[in-house]
């Protein structure tokens, strides 16, 4: 019990995320008879495979105090490359090429952000457009399609009731990135440049290395997400996948990252993604059109961000009034002392 209390006070955001995920799940489990079944569990994990990667990528970027807007374009480019070249070169080669391209793009972005000392949103808005152009170019402005459907069948084979090769791969990715962020020096550097950049730079951390690592991982995750979508559906569009940014941001913010950076973690990203997936999947049962899902996600993001901002403003005000109180108290004590000292002499 004591340990639980300690956990709650240490990680209020994570506990909030778990509670939110649990209540969303319970709500749909009660209202929809089909929701709490093995088949729906499998469907949720299949969605988790893609959205989880995007949520993970955005979580890392926001931990580093930046945001990667080009994530949808990067995913679309990877999807187009994989689907286009699978027939000629085989799926593995095409997949590796796409991963290499998207990771390199991410690393280059990170390098330029660190070298030019600009905010990531500035550069990634540009690359959003640029990568879209590259994807259109790679796809010849058509919707590219697979002819051989053995690979799509393979990556969505059911294993262990809930999982498929794709979702197992993504879970492995989560574990690796989580260990990397918690236990290696490079991971801690990412937290450092996000939470207190000036202090981190002053204490000798170079901005280049963590930025390149963060954006390379972000590019890798976006690419992998795009590949999974492309191979699973067998088609890819150069202008598609833009909805990933909103869903991924919602997942990251529910998972407890702070827009100021330096807070949050991989577990939060997983729980945030699961919450969004529960919501998505549950709304599908109600035959909700996709724009209504977007509306709910928008409201959810606004609520979460206002909650966070409100608590920050409240904290600051509290701290300031406490400081003023403190100053007042000391001043009155001082005044009393001075009066006491003056009395005998006067």
């Amino acid at each position, binding site marked *: 019990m004591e340990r639980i209390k300690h956990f709650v006070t240490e990680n209020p955001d994570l506990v909030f995320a778990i509670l939110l995920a649990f209540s969303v799940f319970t709500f749909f489990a009660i209202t929809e008879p089909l929701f709490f079944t093995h088949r729906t569990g499998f469907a949720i994990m299949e969605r988790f495979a893609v959205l989880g990667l995007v949520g993970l990528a955005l979580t890392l970027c926001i931990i580093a105090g930046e945001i990667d807007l080009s994530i949808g374009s990067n995913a679309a480019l990877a999807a187009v490359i994989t689907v286009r070249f699978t027939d000629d070169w085989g799926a593995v080669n095409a997949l590796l090429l796409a991963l290499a391209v998207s990771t390199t793009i991410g690393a280059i972005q990170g390098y330029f952000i660190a070298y030019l000392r600009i905010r990531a949103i500035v550069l990634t808005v540009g690359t959003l*457009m640029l990568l879209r152009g590259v994807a*259109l170019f790679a796809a010849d402005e058509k919707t590219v399609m697979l002819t051989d459907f053995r690979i799509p069948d393979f990556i969505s084979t059911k294993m262990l009731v809930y999982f498929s090769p794709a979702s197992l791969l993504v879970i492995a990715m989560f574990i690796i990135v989580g260990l990397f962020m918690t236990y290696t020096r490079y991971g801690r550097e990412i937290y450092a440049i996000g939470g207190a950049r000036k202090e981190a730079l002053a204490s000798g951390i170079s901005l280049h290395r963590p930025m390149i690592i963060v954006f390379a991982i972000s590019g890798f995750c976006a690419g992998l997400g795009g590949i999974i979508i492309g191979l699973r559906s067998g088609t890819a569009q150069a202008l598609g996948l833009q909805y990933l940014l909103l869903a991924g941001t919602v997942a990251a913010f529910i998972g407890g990252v702070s827009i100021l950076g330096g807070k949050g973690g991989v577990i939060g990203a997983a729980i945030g993604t699961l919450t969004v997936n529960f919501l998505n999947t549950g709304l599908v049962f109600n035959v909700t059109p996709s724009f209504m899902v977007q509306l709910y996600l928008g409201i959810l993001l606004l609520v979460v961000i206002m909650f966070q901002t409100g608590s920050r403003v409240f904290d600051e005000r509290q701290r300031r009034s406490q400081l003023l109180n403190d100053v007042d108290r000391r001043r009155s004590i001082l005044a009393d002392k001075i009066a006491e000292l003056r009395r005998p002499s006067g």
Partner: protein
Amino acid sequence: MTDATAMSGDDLNFIQRIRRDYSPLVIAMVGLFLVVFLAGATLTDDFLTWFNVKTIIRDAALVGIMAIGLTFVTLSGNFFLLSMKEIAALSIICFATLMGADWNQWGPAEGDPTTSALMMTFLVAFTATMIIATITGAIQGALIGLGGNPIVVTLGAAGLFFGIGSWWSDNLVVSYRRPHGAEWLGTGSFIGDIPNITVAFIIIAVVAELTLRYTTFGRQVYLVGANRAAGRATGHENFGMAIKCCIIASVCAAFVAVAFSGQVSSAHVNYFSSEFGSSGDMTIMVIAIVMVGGNSIMGGYGSTLRTSLGAIFISSIDNMMVLNGFNSGARVLAVGLMIVFSIIVFALVRRGSRAVE
């Protein structure tokens, strides 16, 4: 003595001054770009004709007006709104729905309605659209002013507005009959053969530039953008400023929506999303124009004149590529390269002169 005059730079000619102020890399990049642009302009047939120049400015008008609105937000240090196209989508649905609404027909039931009846319909729809746009702008501005991150707030607001627009129109195309009161704005021309939308673009650009330069409000925008702490110390909080700037951006987006709806006599939430212009996405295009114009994204530096020129520049590059027979992929690629290029050049120019944050 000679050293002192050389240091002050009064006797340097133009080229020497440029070589003193900018690094060789920046000069080489800009020079290369200028050479490519001028070569393209002279070698492309029919590029430098009066008719084509008119086409370029007309193409630049719609995105340009939106970008001018967004420039206010950027100058006041609130980055940019990622919800520009969704505001426009909600506005266009509102406008078209009211233009076709039964209660909003002021003419006789039989026969062609008179001009004044058409204008009455238009005015009612226009006013309602502007009110909606003001509300959307004020909501976002208030959330940003309270301390929410502009990118995340507007990303959420974008989903919300798009959802409301789709829900209102049932995700269908809303159309209304010609003749209607918005034709003069969409396709008409009062002054010779210059389209009214071009005239509107020029008027809005001039008014915005004059507002920023010569009014108290304009100077306050620059102050809040350049130095938030100084602004707060002198009584100019970002709260009111963010609301005002977001309302300006929203109203500009709604105006563009009305003009576009006047051209096609219909509305759909996706008009500004994928099938519009060369870019495929109005929001990104608008942000691109603000950046290519060289406005500082951190705020406080730039002008709407730069934005207007950026709009015309991007439009002319696009036009040049169309005349040379490029497909949309190559054009999007070129616009993307131009944005990244201008970001890098402006960052290199300003490096050292501005703080990191």
